[in-house]
């Protein structure tokens, strides 16, 4: 019989207790691979991505159920079911233990003391299910002098070192933004998790994974760690430039806020660039002919390239440079990305049907393609508590009376009990400050056109 390729997590159940980006995204990506992922949400503490902190709400309108309208929540939590369960209550803990018996993986990112306080740490849970894999993600890991420190991506990026090596030339260290540590934690966590899954498939043994974001972040910057130990120096901040390759920089192109990045790595590419620039006299100019010469004339090289770029549109420069084998690319914004020909061709953004009034929206897929297996976003993220009854009834066999009792004691809630402040984003002042570049009224049509084209 010919074997049929199947998704690796079909038939597996994941309990996701986590908040914000790193671990929720891990769990969302697991659902693309066939897992049934249940997001367990505290009735009194919404995931920050359901709220105003990260937003944005659909059409900047919180309406009567803002927690079901946040875009970022639906990107990160795609494919999941939602059970709203109060783990601080004994009834909630009992339900959770019953679910653990029927699940394979638990993911969480509480500070280390919380799960212990509830009696839901790994040592307790593995008594219920010896093959259970549990992943705990914290800023600093479960041990060590900083383990109880609070953390989020925004401040961790400074502590882990990336901030020190980012910034304009001669300027102070710069925040890299966008919660960078969360994403490397997501991928590093998935590494450990998949290794644990492989081990469990082989031996039947579960285990606990202790992820500390600070520590794994440090592993992303070996260059300065080596340099410091080798000769006692540190790399300097140099904006978008490269220590070795000149030119390698970002240049203004024709148009408002238009930019082209390019990197010349060989002398051959430099000669090709001078020909594109229609400056053949530069090809054999001793000031620029070798990599070492260009390094010692950095400013002059940058000025020559900048002068050329400024008069051309980035799309034209991009194609011309790539035509000569020179690494290059314009700076794309979120609108450009959703309409980008390459990402459309690869169907990087998937059209996912959401509950009304959201409708079909493009959602970030996965950064890899599988040739034989149908990895995909299988459904939209859940509304708050959407699957309360179905999970309690179908997985745990609870009767309607038992379910009502759980709701009466607020162990399970159909609505958040403490949704916090909701509000709109002040798009006008953000546009004025420049932190928003534009707000498109016709964005739905634009992404709709994109979807039909990619079919």
């Amino acid at each position, binding site marked *: 019989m010919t074997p049929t390729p199947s998704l690796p997590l079909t038939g597996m159940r994941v309990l996701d207790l986590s908040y914000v980006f790193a671990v929720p995204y891990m769990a969302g990506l697991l659902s693309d691979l066939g897992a049934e992922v249940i997001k367990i949400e505290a009735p009194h503490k919404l995931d920050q991505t359901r709220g105003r902190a990260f937003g944005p709400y659909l059409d900047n309108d919180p309406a009567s159920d803002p927690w079901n309208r946040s875009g970022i929540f639906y990107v990160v939590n795609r494919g999941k079911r939602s059970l709203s369960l109060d783990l601080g209550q004994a009834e909630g803990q009992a339900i959770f233990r019953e679910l653990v018996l029927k699940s394979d993986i638990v993911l969480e990112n509480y500070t280390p003391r919380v799960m212990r306080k509830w009696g839901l740490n790994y040592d307790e849970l593995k008594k219920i299910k010896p093959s259970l894999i549990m992943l705990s993600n914290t800023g600093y890991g479960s041990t060590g002098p900083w383990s109880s420190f609070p953390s989020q991506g925004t401040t961790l990026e400074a502590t882990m070192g990336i901030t020190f090596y980012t910034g304009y030339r001669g300027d102070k260290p710069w925040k890299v933004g966008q919660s960078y540590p969360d994403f490397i934690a997501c991928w590093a966590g998935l590494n450990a998790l998949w290794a644990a899954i492989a081990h469990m498939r082989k031996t039947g043994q579960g285990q606990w994974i202790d992820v500390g974001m600070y520590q794994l972040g440090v592993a992303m910057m070996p260059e300065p760690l080596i340099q410091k130990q080798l000769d006692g120096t540190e790399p300097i901040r140099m904006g978008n430039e490269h220590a070795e390759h000149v030119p390698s920089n*970002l240049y203004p192109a024709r148009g408002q806020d238009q930019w082209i990045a390019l990197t010349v790595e060989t002398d051959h590419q430099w000669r090709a660039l001078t020909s594109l620039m229609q400056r053949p006299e530069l090809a054999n100019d001793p000031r620029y002919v070798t990599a070492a010469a260009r390094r010692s004339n950095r400013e002059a090289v940058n000025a020559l390239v900048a002068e050329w770029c400024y008069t051309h549109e980035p799309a034209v420069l991009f194609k011309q440079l790539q035509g000569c084998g020179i690494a290059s690319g314009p700076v794309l914004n979120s609108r450009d990305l959703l309409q980008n020909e390459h990402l459309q061709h690869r169907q990087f953004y998937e059209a996912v049907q959401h509950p009304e009034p959201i409708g079909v929206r493009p959602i970030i897929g996965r950064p890899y393609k599988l040739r034989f297996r149908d990895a995909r976003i299988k459904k939209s993220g859940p509304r708050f508590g959407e699957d309360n009854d179905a999970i309690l009834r179908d997985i745990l066999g609870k009767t309607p009376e038992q379910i009502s009792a759980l709701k009466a004691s607020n162990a399970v809630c159909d609505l958040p009990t403490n949704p916090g402040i909701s509000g709109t984003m002040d798009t006008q002042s953000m546009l004025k400050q420049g932190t928003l570049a534009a707000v498109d009224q016709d964005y739905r049509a634009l992404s709709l056109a994109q979807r039909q084209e990619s079919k």
Partner: protein
Amino acid sequence: MDKTHPDGALTGLRVLDLSHGIAGPFAARLLGDHGAEVIKIERPIKGDFARTLPPLKDSAPEPERSLLFQYLNWNKRSLALDLRLVENRPLLQQLIEQSDIVVESFRPGRLEQWGLSVDQMLEWKPNLVVTSITNFGQTGPYAQFAASDLTLQALSGIMHISGQVDREPLKHGLSQSFYCAGLTAAYAAIMAYTAAHADGCGEHVDVSIHECLASELVLNESYYAFLGAVQGRRAVVQDPFAGEPILTRKGYLAFQTGGGAPVETLAELFDRPEFREKRFASPPEREKRVPEVKALLEECVANRDAKEVFLAGAQKRLLLGVVQSAEDLLACEHLKERQAFTELEHPATQTTLRMPAELAKLSLTPTSVRRRAPLLDEHRAEILAQLRSAI
């Protein structure tokens, strides 16, 4: 093999690493860290081009000068082999037949030219997982395009939202794109192996470095997809609680709200009662007077050291970060206690370096560094003898 290490999760797995540079070799090394046996195939004479990547030990012989290469290639054995030569195909076939995972990073189509297409490899070994790591993936109009860390950050959108609104977009420092892709490729390889091992069907995993970076922009994407808003760069005067580094007497601090402690805790930390007043304690009030809040914070830390404030604040459950350099990281008491660094000796460079080795702690199957990075072609005799005995 050193038996002092407990088995890793992938002990017994065989990985053939045909890749070069940072992303592919880092991915293959991560598999090795979990216990897989990794054979690295390098072009003869020069080897992997990462052997020329700085930092370099200038006094060491070529091609053994790169210390970055050593970081990316421990837990591997090296065999130099010209993939282009037809006479090497029987040996490659044998190596592939004995592998569970192949990692490669050639430009799309290159392996096919050499008679080593994924189809050919799957014919040799039907449940093989081939993991390809390229700038833009195997398909699409950019598949053959060249890229650098800088251009990938531009094309992925990261730069559009990094830096200051009245200045040019700013890339993340160092070579983050390639490490991001290495992490993704490693987990995707184990994932596909798990699937192939279960159902007997091989797989080709096509990882795009560009898409790894675009995957980070979950906020940026949803701003547009749910609202039509195009995110820009950071404001000229930033909310001081949004992580912008603030200068102290020694070093920089990053502040954020929303930890376990309210903003009023700052009153205690700095002995400044103003933080209990509504104009500083209430978020909407604070938003109205950003420059004033920023000036107050700057004043509070001007005569203190960043690390000391970080420790004192974090103990009070405030969300704080301290901007650390390599020097600080190497001296960090927490990383030391976590045993995050492993000491590595290498005879070619005569160096002993402390490098971050453990990304996460697995309770039953910890990762390990069992062997230093190989010299070019160091294990030829050993690998060939092993293949002969397997026949």
